[in-house]
Every structure is written in C-alpha cells, then in structure tokens.
C-alpha cells in the first residue's frame, strides 16, 4: 500500500537525502533553499540521519567541503540557489573535472541584480557548462524520486560525475504536496553503498588534482565529455529500474499528447504542469496541440528530443532565462541546434518568460501558444519574444 503524505517539498527533499543515507552534508543557507538544509540539520541533530553536517561559512566552502568529502569516499550532499550557485561556480568545474560524485539540490532562483528571491532559470543556465549532470523536476514527487536516483547515477562506476537536481524555488520548494515516500528497505536495495574507486586513504596513497600540461589537458577534457555523454544511458536505465521498483517512470524528455500534434509546446521545470492544463483545454477545443517537458538538461538528450517532436510543424519553447544579446532562451538555442541539420524540422519559436517568479497562468499559456503559432506563420522581427513584459 502506498501512502501519500502531505508535506512541504523542501522537507521531502531532505527526507529523500535521509533515505539515501548521506554521510556528509555541507551547506550554507540561501532563500529558497533554506528549508532543505534546515530540515537536514534537524534530522542530523535528532539522530535520524547519521551524517556529519558542516555548517560552512559560504557556498564556495560548501562545495569545497563536498569535494573533500567525496574524494574521501563519503556520500555527499549539498543544496543551494542563485547567488550561492554563482559563488560556487569555480568549484563546480573541479567536482566534475575530478570526477567527484557530489549531489546538489538547486532551488532555482533568479540572479541579482536587481535582487530577486523568486524562481527562474538564470542560475542553472550560468552553470550549464560546468560538466555536471543536470536533472530538472516539475513537482515534489519528482524531486524526491530524482534525488534518490541522483545518488545512484553519480556514484555509478561508469559515471562518477556530480549531479544537480533542479527544482524551482518557491513554486516547488515552498509548496505542500502529497508525496509517496519509498520504503527504506527498497531504497537500500536500489541504492547500494557508495564505493568510490580510489578515495583518499593513507593505506593506498593517490595524488588527486595534479595540474595538466598541454600534452594531457585535451585528453582529460575529451574523456570527461565522452563520460557525460555516456552517462545518458546510465541515467535512463536508472530511471527504468526506478520505475520497475517504485512504479514511477521518468524520461529524458517527457511527452504529453505529443503524438501527431501539429504544434508542440516545450517547457522545463515547474511551469510544465500549468502548461499541461492549458494543453488540455486547447485540445478540448479541438486544437491539435501537444507538449514536451525537458527533464535532462545535461547531458542534452538530442535523440530523445527529436523523436518526441517527430512530425510537429511548430515547436514553441518557453525559457526562464535570458542569454543577453544572444539568440534567444538557452533551451531554445539548444533545441535549434538539435534540429539544424535535420531534413525535416519544425519551425522553432523561442519565448522567454516567467522571470524572477512571475507566474504564467493557464490562460497565459494559451495566449503564448497562440502568439507562437502566429510567429511561426508570419515571423517576428526579433530572434525571440519575451512573454508578458510591459514595454
């Protein structure tokens, strides 16, 4: 029997880390991540999670302590948001470059200035090229499930890469949702103890983090690229096994009424569920419209995306971040490049919206789709349009 518990998503994320039996948590508080790390501190203080909690003095040190912890072979978790993620930036590259399986929940939030504590994807886009696996969720259940999966993916000998699980700040972190928690025994079976191949250990000295002269740097980076590409199959098979074990199945690209749809709306993150309601209503009115939701941001699932969009004529993409002076939203840019060399491809329309916590309602999505179809038909003078802005 599965029981649904009404619980705040941040608390549920912390409980997922407890179920994963993390050894070390190093974290620095930042809104809207705070409830995750507060609850973890509480779990450790009450002895419900046997872990070391390092209350570091900055996010830079949070991620640095995670490097040390993961290098010593411990199961390591942290969480952050926005400015915190930006402050960690240089450390993130080290985690992936040194193949250290750190898990991080990112409560997506806009970057300053102006200061905004509310959700968008500017923080996660700023770390796109750090070499981390980036998984994006749309609701609390997905957050819990993917935190558990993230440990298994990161620690897999074939992967050994750090993983971020992105959940939109406030829209997800601070809402109460009905969540099904997996049984501890099932999680233990699904997630075996971490066995980092060459940890820091005086019995078997290793040198980690030597500097690479030009003769080896390219090879190191290429190995890393091959590795994150290959991680896609491991992630997908992890989700498949998760589905078999727990009955909830995840995909790199989630599809919703996409088969045979002439127009497809593409979203990433918490806006996806609101958009689905709009899709339902439009379909009820007889519109041939579907939706795809991007779950896997890095590695980017080129093939899965092309398959999901297959025969659509129009693909409308909503981004929650701006690449200033650039070609459009970061997701749209990626999708365009995925289709550029294809013979058959949809017209791709790029929107940016829902910045700094601004909502797009169901009727908002309907308007956005309508405008998207117009642009596909008649074109736009801009590379992309920003939705709902007052000019």
């Amino acid at each position, binding site marked *: 029997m599965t029981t649904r518990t009404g619980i705040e998503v941040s608390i549920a994320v912390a409980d997922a880390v407890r179920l994963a039996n993390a*050894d*070390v948590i*190093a974290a620095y508080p930042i809104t809207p991540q705070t409830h995750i790390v507060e609850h973890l501190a509480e779990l450790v203080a009450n002895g419900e999670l*046997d*872990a*070391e909690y*390092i*209350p*570091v*003095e*900055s996010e*830079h*040190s*949070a991620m*640095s*302590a*995670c*490097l*040390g*912890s*993961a*290098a*010593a*072979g*411990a199961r*390591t978790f942290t969480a952050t948001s926005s400015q915190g993620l930006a402050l960690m930036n*240089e*450390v993130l590259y*080290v985690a992936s470059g*040194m193949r250290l399986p750190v898990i991080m929940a990112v409560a997506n939030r806009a970057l300053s200035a102006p200061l905004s504590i509310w959700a968008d994807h500017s923080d996660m886009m700023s770390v796109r090229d750090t070499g981390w696996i980036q998984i994006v969720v749309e609701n609390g259940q997905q957050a819990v499930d993917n935190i558990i999966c993230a440990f298994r993916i990161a620690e897999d000998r074939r992967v050994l890469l750090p993983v971020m699980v992105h959940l939109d700040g406030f829209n997800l972190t601070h809402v109460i949702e009905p969540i099904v928690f997996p049984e501890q025994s099932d999680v233990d079976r699904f997630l075996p103890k971490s066995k980092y191949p060459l940890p*820091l*250990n*005086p*019995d*078997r*000295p*290793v*040198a*980690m*983090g*030597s*500097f*690479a*002269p030009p003769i*080896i740097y390219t090879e190191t980076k290429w190995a890393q690229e091959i590795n994150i590409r290959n991680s896609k199959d491991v992630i997908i098979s992890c989700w498949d096994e998760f589905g078999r074990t727990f009955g909830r199945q995840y995909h790199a690209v989630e599809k919703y009424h996409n088969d045979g749809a002439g127009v497809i709306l593409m979203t990433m993150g918490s806006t996806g569920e609101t958009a689905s309601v709009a899709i339902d209503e439009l379909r009820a009115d007889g519109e041939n419209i579907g939706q795809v939701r991007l779950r896997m941001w890095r590695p980017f699932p080129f093939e899965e995306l092309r398959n999901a969009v297959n025969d659509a004529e129009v693909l409308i993409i909503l981004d929650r971040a701006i690449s200033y002076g650039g070609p459009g939203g970061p997701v749209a840019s990626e999708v365009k490049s995925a289709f550029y060399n294809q013979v058959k491809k949809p017209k791709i329309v790029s929107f940016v919206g829902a910045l700094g916590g601004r909502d797009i309602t169901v009727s908002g999505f309907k308007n956005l789709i309508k405008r998207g179809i117009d642009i596909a038909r008649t074109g736009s003078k801009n590379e992309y349009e920003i939705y709902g802005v007052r000019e």
Partner: protein
Amino acid sequence: MEKYAVYVPRLVQKREKFAPGHRACIGCGEALAIRLAFKALDNNIIVANATGCAEIFAGQFPNTSWQLPWIHTLFENTAAVASGIEAAYKAMKRKGIKLPDNTKIVAIAGDGGTSDIGLQALSGALERGHDFTYICFDNEAYMNTGNQRSSATPFGAATTTSPLGKKSTGQFSWKKNMPEIATAHNIPYVATATHGFPFDLMAKVAKAVATKGPAYVHVLSVCPTGWRSPTDTINRQARLAVQTGMFPLYEVENGIYKMSLDLPKLRPVKDYLKIQGRFRHLSDAVIQQIQERVELEYQKLLEKAKDGSKTAKRKSRTGAGKVPA
C-alpha cells in the same frame, strides 16, 4: 636547540614523504620546509594542498613528489576541503566503514592562499573546530605567479605589484599577523616556525598534528628567487629573520604564549634586510622605522609570553618540557 643537533638527526626518519625530483627553484625554502614538516609525521596523513608553488612544482601530471594521499583542488578553499575530508572520515568511521585508524588531515597553503584569498575558508574551518592541521608556508609574496605582493609581504619589500618607484618605497603596509589571527579563534595550538630551525619546525608540526582539534603552524620559508637573495644561505636568512625579531618563534598552546628561543638581545634588522635584494633600496630612515616597529611588536609578544615562557623554562630544567623531534 643547538645542543640537540648532534644526535637529533639520528631520530629523524630516513624515509621521504616528499620525494626529490620536483621542480622547485634552486634554494627553495618552502620545498625544504615541506620535506622537514612531513618527516616529523607518520604515514597516517592526508594532505590537502592549495594552489601555489608547492602544488605546481611537485604535482605535474603524471608525476608527484607526494608519498602520501594528496589532493589539490583550488587556491582559496583548502581549509574547506580539509574540513570535508575530516567530516567524511568521521561519518564513515561511525558508520562502520573500514578505514585506517588515526588518520590525520594536514592542509598546506602559501601566504596568499592563507592570509588573502583563503582567509575566510580558514577562519570558518578553525571556528568550526575540525580536527586538522593547517600549515602556512609563508614566502611573503605570490611567488608562483612571479612575486606579487600579498598581505604577508613585509613593509618596504619591493615586489612586482609593490614596486620601487619615484613615489614608492616598496610594500606600503605591514605584514599581516596571521598567527595572531589564528590565535584569535581560540584554537588549541598555534605556532610559528622556519626551516632555519629544523628540529623546532619538526617538533611543532608533530605537536600540531597530535593536537585534537584545529592547529595552525606558520612557517617562514625563504624564497631566494623572489627575495633576490643568495640560494646557498636560506637557512642563515631564516635564522636572521628570527634573531632580528622580524619573525619571532613562539607557540600558543590553549591560549598560553611561549617563546621558543631565549634571545638575550635582538640583532639589528639591518643584518637581515641587507642580504636581500627586495630591501636593497631602503634608506636608513626607513630601516629605522622597521627597527622600531619590530621592537615594539616583539616587546608586545614577550609581554604576552611572560608567564608561559617562565613555566616552560622551569619545566625544561626539570626535563619535562622537552619535545621529541
């Protein structure tokens, strides 16, 4: 200290933890200090190394001088990395994962990585009370990048970013007092040392690592390349730094200050300054200014160490104060 010199070397282990063949400059005081420091320790050590000279000259892939498990990640975060390793060992041991007993974490960094860019991470790690030792190998400037001034560069020293000019006499500020900053964290052990007094250095490092909780050792390491001084007299230069009072040797154990050397009289700072190219331009007036400042600081230190040093002297007469090297 000198009286041990005959037989103490026999007590020092032969095995190198920091092997030769690395790429340090000729006469590198830091390489010597690192070698000595780790000779004072057993094999139960994990080293976290900040970016800097030592990381570069001993860690080019695929070579390493380290016979110990060693990790380098970034410049400013070494204390944080060390705290992560310490926490990981604590948690994993508690959870029954088989790990070697009594593993100790030693973080090493230069003066820039310690007193400038890494100060926040160090302060955090000291304040949280992790069981680790932090050793700062201080060569008084950013030597790895070509001798730029740091907050540990002494007043008057010419570096590439505190150059001598029509309107400048070199470094414009006084050396940041890192050991005092470490002491202000109320940690159980703080010490200053230098390769010029090798057995003192080794004893202090051994003591620091044996201390439960955070320990900080500040090691003056002569850099003939950056200081523009002879490469064959680095130990003499280091000893002069101590004998002139420019770099006093002392320990702070649980808040009790203790001078490591009984110097009846300080030598004039000029003896130290005149052998180094970085100070060559200093006028007698500036040297006098340095002299006064050094004496003032030294007196303040003696005052703090008044009680501690007396106790230590009494103990050493009874034989209880000796520390094996």
